[in-house]
């Protein structure tokens, strides 16, 4: 028996840069994160902080300009950048981990019915000839777990609403019961009521045991708060704080997290809140030429001398909380 517990997802000092005529963009620069079985981990940050890049790197097939530089991504103990790509494609993708990119609800084939699309996916993934009726039955059952009607299978994508399309996409990527589902901004283009339905179906998937863990990426910390157990806050290509969701919301440690939370507009059904929101002065760093040492120091109100010269490591400060700041 292996005595050391294996994390479902373990990211170690991961670096991924965009290389093009515009120079080198250090979008993910030394990120470490773990996700265990049964955990919902959220990644939050503002636009350009590298959260989608991190998700792409985790998917194992980054877009052409994005280059995996160094570090490790271990899924179930297997380094996905070391193993044979063919093994990775057939045995890891969809079976152990699945990735739903941003705006993926528009990726359904417009001239194919949902059922034919699913058929294609099944044949491509299993490499076997499957009986249509059997596939449609399992697919129908699967979509019902997501709160969709079986009739969706016979529809074309344009006949479905945004929320339904998003759930169909979630359904397709979880057909093979992956242990880990990475999902990037699934609700950003949706209305609040559909957003709630999509999140509900994700939670149901986990309850039904179809997926074990979820890596949920969003810019909206109020949405993350609804379903995440743990939350990682990203800023300028680095993780600045990892904590339980409740602690992140109620007791943020890193100055950036504090500022982020005090700038979030939240609906309160009990009383009217007027004023009191604070914006963060300055602009997010240009990741082609990020500020030295702590990347938040030009905008930080607690900045000290050491912040400009030495980079703070992401260290545990109290039980479960990790923060990259010299204040702690």
């Amino acid at each position: 028996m292996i005595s050391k517990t294996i994390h479902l997802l373990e990211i170690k000092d991961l670096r991924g840069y965009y290389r093009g005529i515009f120079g080198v963009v250090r979008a993910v620069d030394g990120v470490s994160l773990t996700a265990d079985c049964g955990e919902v981990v959220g990644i939050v940050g503002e636009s350009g902080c590298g959260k989608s890049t991190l998700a792409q790197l985790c998917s194992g097939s980054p877009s052409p300009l994005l280059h995996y530089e160094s570090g490790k991504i271990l899924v179930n103990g297997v380094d996905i950048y070391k193993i044979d790509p063919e093994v990775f494609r057939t045995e890891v993708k969809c079976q152990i981990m699945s990735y739903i990119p941003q705006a993926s609800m528009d990726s359904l084939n417009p001239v194919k019915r949902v059922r034919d699309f699913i058929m294609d996916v099944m044949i491509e993934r299993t490499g076997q000839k499957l009986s249509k009726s059997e596939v449609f039955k399992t697919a129908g059952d699967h979509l019902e777990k997501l709160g969709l009607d079986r009739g969706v299978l016979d529809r074309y994508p344009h006949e479905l609403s945004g929320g339904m399309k998003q759930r169909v996409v979630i359904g397709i990527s979880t057909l093979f019961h992956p242990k880990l589902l990475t999902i990037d901004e699934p609700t950003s283009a949706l209305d609040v009521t559909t957003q709630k339905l999509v999140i509900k179906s994700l939670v149901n998937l986990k309850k039904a045991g179809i997926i074990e863990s979820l890596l949920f990426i969003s810019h909206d910390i109020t949405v993350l708060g609804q379903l995440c157990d743990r939350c990682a806050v990203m800023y300028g290509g680095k993780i600045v704080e990892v904590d339980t969701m409740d602690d992140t919301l109620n007791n943020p440690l890193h100055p950036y997290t504090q500022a982020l939370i005090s700038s979030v507009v939240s609906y309160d059904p009990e009383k009217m809140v007027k004023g009191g929101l604070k914006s963060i002065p300055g602009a997010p760093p240009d990741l082609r030429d990020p500020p030295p040492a702590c990347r938040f120091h030009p905008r930080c109100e607690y900045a000290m001398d050491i912040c400009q010269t030495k980079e703070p490591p992401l260290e545990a400060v109290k039980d479960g909380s990790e923060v990259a700041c010299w204040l702690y």
Partner: protein
Amino acid sequence: METILHCENLTKIFISGLIRTKPIVAVKNVTLDMKKGEIIALVGQSGSGKTTVAKMILRLIKPTSGQIIFNGKNALSYDKREYYRRIQAIVQDPYSAYNPFYKVDRVLEEVFNLYENNPSPDERKKIIHSTLERIGINPEEILGRYPHQLSGGQLQRLLIARPLIINSELVVADEATSMLDASTRAGILNLLLSLKENERISVLFITHDIAQAQYISDRVLMMQNGEVIEQGPSDRVFIHPSNPYTKELFDSVPQLRKKWKF
């Protein structure tokens, strides 16, 4: 308080379809009353007709029926230049509101053309500088730059400076903060609030985000399928909604420190 804008039974029907046979009722009998120095939030999900209302108020499309009375006069009877001097719009995407080939100064200087007698270039510069300083922008940092050199929040602030430069009375902000990050969004919302407090500018704030509407508005109109289904003072509507759809909508809004029960 004096009424600045009054919309009476505003209706817009778009005709579409292959042989123009399919009418789409985008806005139906919307009546709204806006006082000077008031922020009204127009809230609804996508496709509820919010933007169509804004476009009609901005005279970008003609209403099928109904009237828009601005400062006691029918909006359509105004001279276009005068109308746009008094009503200004802020749009969702600050990046597409600027011409990438010109410096951002142009956007600010263009508004002077709405005056009958143009101020001299020196005067213009002075007005622009003082206005920018008033809303907390350092003119040195921004003027003379191109749009791509500035962040979304800075560009949006410059658009908000426009109505201030020409002393507009009403600002129509159509999803003005939807594309911004949380930290910049808070700044823009506070800026709009200060416009109301300090300059008594009325703002028609159109949004799908209930949290933002609650934060900023004095009065709120909830729209669904082109109709106003509930309206009233914000402290009533947001705390005690009466319409079932409004209630359902508010229930789905994620709250910062309260978890949904699944």
